[in-house]
């Protein structure tokens, strides 16, 4: 499976969400990455999930541009790294509440 191809496909699937939420896209895909062996549909679902999560995390952002970054690159020891990053909710007047909520969510989701 070509991960860059999958990222592009997932971005295309999320195209409506991106434009409806006025999210800018920043791609940094490394060309000619080695392929990954895996289930195409499952990996695409995962990427789409990360993208949609990031878009949703940016809905409260109004004062700054909403930017979704998608990056792929080689990592030592023949691994491929994919980053999906968002410009987040930032530190505003409700920062404590946001941080608290996000750390709770993080715990629930990742542990």
């Amino acid at each position: 499976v070509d991960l860059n191809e999958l990222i592009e496909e997932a971005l295309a699937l999320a195209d409506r969400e991106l434009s409806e939420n006025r999210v800018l896209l920043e791609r940094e895909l490394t060309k000619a990455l080695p392929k990954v062996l895996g289930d195409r549909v499952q990996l695409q679902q995962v990427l789409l999930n990360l993208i949609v999560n990031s878009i949703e995390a940016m809905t409260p952002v109004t004062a700054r541009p909403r930017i979704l970054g998608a990056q792929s690159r080689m990592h030592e020891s023949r691994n491929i790294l994919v980053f999906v990053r968002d410009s987040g909710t930032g530190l505003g007047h409700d920062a404590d509440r946001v941080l608290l909520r996000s750390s709770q969510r993080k715990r629930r989701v990742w542990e």
Partner: protein
Amino acid sequence: LGIDLPISRSLIEAHGGRLWVERNFFLCRYILLLRAGSGREFLMTGNPVVFVLDDDASVRYSLKFLLDTVGLQVETFDSAETFLRKRPPDKPSCLVLDVRLRGLSGLDFQRELAARNIQIPRFLSQVTATFHECSRHEGRSS
């Protein structure tokens, strides 16, 4: 739209990769790490095994011989029933299956696998000339 994070993470781990998140005040970054490599390299990790299912002893012998020469671990079975009696191991494996097995046929066997929720990549071997006849009868309904 899409699937949630715990499922995403378990899917990635099933692919031998990792998925985690980094957050700071201004951004949130999901990091996905997947192992690059060809199918062959993947096959060579985790002691993969090839199951050969054929009721013809000479086919079993020659397929095992062929796969042995490329360094693959091979286990042969003379019928679907024998295979099903043995629980498939939890490691990378694939199945080379004769479509015209005695007893449970290759296609019935695949239905049986699906019914037992056993997911294993498989190749139907078409060593007999009657494959087309057989697939016309059964292939469409499976």
